[in-house]
């Protein structure tokens, strides 16, 4: 249970709300339509394909649900979603195949 006073909880919520908003607003809001140098743009073109894969790497390799132990069903699901997504370019197909493999794997292993 949280042992904080109500007002302190609200201070935390408000600070996180304002802070998160400012982070999200930052470049998009303050730079407006100013043109960034080409070398910066070149790096920014790779933001999505680096941050998002890195973000989920620990979730794939060391899932909390298995106490941080690598899990064959989850690894197979991640790999199949990657292959199907890469080949078909269709996120829905990748999600569907990933989930089917996940449940099949969990049924087989578990």
């Amino acid at each position, binding site marked *: *249970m*949280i042992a*904080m006073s109500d007002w302190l*909880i609200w*201070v*935390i*919520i408000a*600070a*996180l*709300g304002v*802070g*998160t*908003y400012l*982070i*999200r*607003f*930052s*470049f*998009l809001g303050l*730079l*407006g*339509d*100013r*043109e*960034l140098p080409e*070398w910066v*743009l*070149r790096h*920014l*073109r*790779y*933001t*999505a*394909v*680096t*941050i*998002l*894969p*890195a*973000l*989920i*790497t*620990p*979730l794939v*390799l060391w899932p909390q*649900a298995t106490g941080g132990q690598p899990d064959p069903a*989850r690894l197979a*699901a*991640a790999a199949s*979603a*990657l292959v199907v*997504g890469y080949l078909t370019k*269709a*996120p*829905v197909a*990748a*999600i569907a195949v*990933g989930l089917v493999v*996940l*449940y099949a794997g969990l049924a087989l292993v578990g």
Partner: protein
Amino acid sequence: MTTATAKSTYFRGVRNGLPFLLVVMPFGMLFGVVATEAGLNLAQVMGFSFLVIAGAAQFTALQLMVDNAPALIVIASALAVNLRMAMYSASLQPHLGAAPLWQRALIAYFNVDQSYALAIQDYDAHPERPLNLKVAYFFGVLTPVCPLWYVATLIGALVGTAIPEEFALDFAVPITFIALIAPALRTFAHVAAAVVAVVLAIVFAFLPYNLWLFVAGAGGMMVGAEIERRRAS
């Protein structure tokens, strides 16, 4: 091929955003349940989802509050989790920076992982599209994703039941993110950047405060940009 209008582009965004309810629903509900069980009242639980609107940061803050961490530590740790969104903001700027301030202010509020990832992929594949269509697409994508985050939190807080663990929906996050990223791996530079980021995320996993994520992201971006530069020259 008909010409895309703002309306048709908006609905294309809505359709592309729909599959991500698979992540938003279970995690919003789980946050509602866990936050309520931790002793937050309904207004506080909903305040989190409305004002912060970032699942990972909300869970981080909640866990630290339960552990009785000082308020400043709670705030700094949860904001560190969200710092990646400054990179999202920067990478959207070349595409959306010319939009009116009120649109950029709204887009900033709704700049969550899913809306960012879908939108940037669309913009990078078709950078020549006009600004109004890029804005319409962003609003389309967030339409199914963001409001349902509030609804899911509310259901979790009121009903008090999350989706059972047997459904393994903990893994919906990685699967949907992989589904977002795999189609974006269009060139060798993209693939190399992603591989380097994943390897660095493993090697630097021990770093605290989400620093590993920035090492991984920066390293991958440098590799991608360098390959692109060499191929262009």
